[in-house]
């Protein structure tokens, strides 16, 4: 254990900026390692400018990757590993924001926008219908020959200008 710690120390003192995901960090068990990599992509390096744990070269990222692997080896589920980190660093460290009352606006925002857009279009559709009834056939088909490859029978137009 002591040797391991000394080796880590030597490595860290020698090169404060370690490499992103080195072979020596990886677990022997491929299933656990795959989980560790996936978690690494979902967790944020607390110090870096918007990088995931997996991508970052910072010392803290190396430490946290090691901790993720330790906890997986100890038998934690993915949820428990994330909880371990959020207990210390807050929700900030999750790249996928949790579903809480404070993030409803975030997660349901896109849905709200598309519904709103749908409503706007629906309302303008009624006006559109009125315009259509009023204008009828507005000499369109002659103008738009090139743009209407299919004629009203659903067949390809053969003659072009």
């Amino acid at each position, binding site marked *: 254990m002591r040797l391991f710690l000394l*080796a880590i120390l*030597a*490595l860290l003192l020698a090169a404060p*900026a*370690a*490499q*992103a*995901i*080195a*072979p*020596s960090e*990886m677990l022997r068990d491929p299933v656990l390692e795959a989980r560790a990599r996936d978690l690494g992509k979902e967790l944020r390096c607390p110090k*870096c*400018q*918007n*990088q*995931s744990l997996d*991508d970052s070269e910072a010392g803290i990222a190396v430490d946290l990757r090691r901790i993720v692997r330790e906890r997986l080896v100890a038998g934690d589920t993915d949820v428990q590993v994330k909880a371990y980190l959020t207990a210390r660093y807050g*929700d*900030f*460290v*999750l*790249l*996928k*924001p*949790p579903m809480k009352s*404070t*993030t409803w606006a*975030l997660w349901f*925002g*896109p849905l709200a*926008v*598309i519904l709103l*857009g*749908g409503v706007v*279009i629906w309302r303008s559709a009624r*006006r559109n*219908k009125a*315009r*259509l*009834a*009023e*204008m009828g056939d*507005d000499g*369109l088909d002659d*103008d*738009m020959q*090139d*743009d*209407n*490859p*299919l004629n*009203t*029978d*659903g*067949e*390809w137009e*053969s003659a*072009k*200008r």
Partner: protein
Amino acid sequence: MTVETGHFALIVALILAVMQSTVPLWAAARGNRELMNLARHTAWGQLICVTLAFCVLMYAFASSDFSVTVVAMNSHSAKPFLYKLAASWGHHEGSLLLWILILSLFGACVATFCRGMPDPLRARVLAVQGMIGVGFMLFTLLTSNPFDRLIDAPLDGNGLNPLLQDPGLVFHPPLLYFGYVGMSTAFSFAVAALIEGRVTPDWARWARTWVLIAWAGLTMGISLGSWWAYYELGWGGFWFWDPVENASFMPWLMATALLHCISVVAKRDAFKSWTLLLAILGFSMSLLGTFIVRSGLLTSVHAFATDPERGVFILVLLGITVGGALLLFAIRAPTMEGGGGFEPVSREGALLINNLLLATATATVLIGTLYPLVLEAVTGEKVSVGPPFFNATFVPLMMPMLAVMALAPLLSWRKASALAAFKQLWVAGIAAAGVLLLSVWISGAGVAGIIGMTVAAWLAAATAYSWVRRWWGKGALRRLISLPMEVHGMSIAHFAAAIVVAGITATSVWQSEAVKLMKAGDSVDLAGYTWRLDRVYDAVGPNYQAVRGEMTVTRTDDGSQVSILYPERRFYPVAQQNTTEAAIHTTGLADLYVVLGEGEQTGGWAMRLYHNPLVPWLWFGAAFMALGGLVSAAGRIRVRRTRTANTAAEAVA
């Protein structure tokens, strides 16, 4: 040559811009032709002055004049010449000057080309362009002057970030700024139309060229930036949903919606409000992007050096520009409707779905990017919104849009039969089904991957079929030549979009990776190739020292050599920075990607090997898409003559 010349030239340009913002507007309202045409002269004057200013700045960098602050901060005598020049725009102040240069270039183009544009409209467009110019020039002169001198000039500069000494990054800002400034021109057209109080199909015809150029510029700028990130940052990723990346993506999404809408205004005299709003919002997104990058508001690997004072200025600029335009929109736009009606199932209907999905996608990216900020302001809580959020929300919006894209070119204007269109595409359906089965057989793609590949195949096959069918048959060559350019442009762009989607999907779900400790002579088998590390040795570059690996890649089955790759770890002594240079070999269908890691005490090297399937399609597809946009821009579209106007039998385009 002293840099004060450049400073002076910029001030003259500002004065000209002020004149251009005010006089022509007044003149257009009065019908004073001479003063309206003043705008053309001031536009050219600005171009000359700003070009002079920029040349002065470039000269300062080329000659390594370290008495100029920005040169001392961003250059070094040992830097290769090309990068000394590129350093002129590789920092905050210089890039602003580049922005202003391209803005004045577009202004001069609007002043000179656009034949047949009525003088009042041209005057108003140039006036709004002038206002934008005033804003940016004031910002530059007051807070970000590239011509500031250092009292004690150092003997040598601080060097540039070595990550930026790269051909990709030389061209990324100019192309991107073409996009942003193009959007400003579209904005000027929209505001000019609002001031005038009407939107006509002819207006759309003139504005359309700028929108297409802007869109092509953004496409190239974004994909170049993405490609740079892919090969420079060393992890094989190409998009991180980083705030700065999102800041360039949102204008692109708006520009895509806009370029479709503007054709509808030209052809059908409809979608006017949509078009005006998209033009305004597209440029707003560009300004917002400028704000995010330069104000220190959000953390990002890309951000320029941060300065809240500049942030305040840009925010005020943003408020005046966007707020003013949106206010004008709220007041004037309701009176501007009219035009052709259409059935829900029609080309217009499909384009409306397109608008809705693109607008929602933009809103999603905006919400995700700004949410951490808003939440912190309201509750003090800090959350992160990263790739998992964006992938979960953005991708499901894009899939239906891509599917409809395949169908839309076959839908008629005003009233169409979806069934008829589908029946025509049975060939494409078979192709899509084939790819679906193939994706399932290859396995490992997941539901999202399979859908992505299937939709890409559907879109590609449908677009190719639609295009060919339009001219195939007797007299094919004549028909091919006489097809409008925009049909070719659309077909190229839609097909290319399918290629891009295929590239993104394949590399996201089927990437193979090997992270191994290798000694000289070791080899690893990955993705059907054998990768052998021959040796690792020291090397020297123009301004760096390096450790270089030599890796031979051969095909596992027959041992034929594919490539020899030279990944490096570089140390730049002036900047005191390390970079990792990945070595990449493209087979056209995939990338072989090698990164040299740290040396271990035990004597091996931490190597990372990647096989990225179809990733070259991403970059080629994007370039092809931009080409499609330019092809469309080159064509002249048929403009709908309104019933009341004088309709000639031959369309004048």
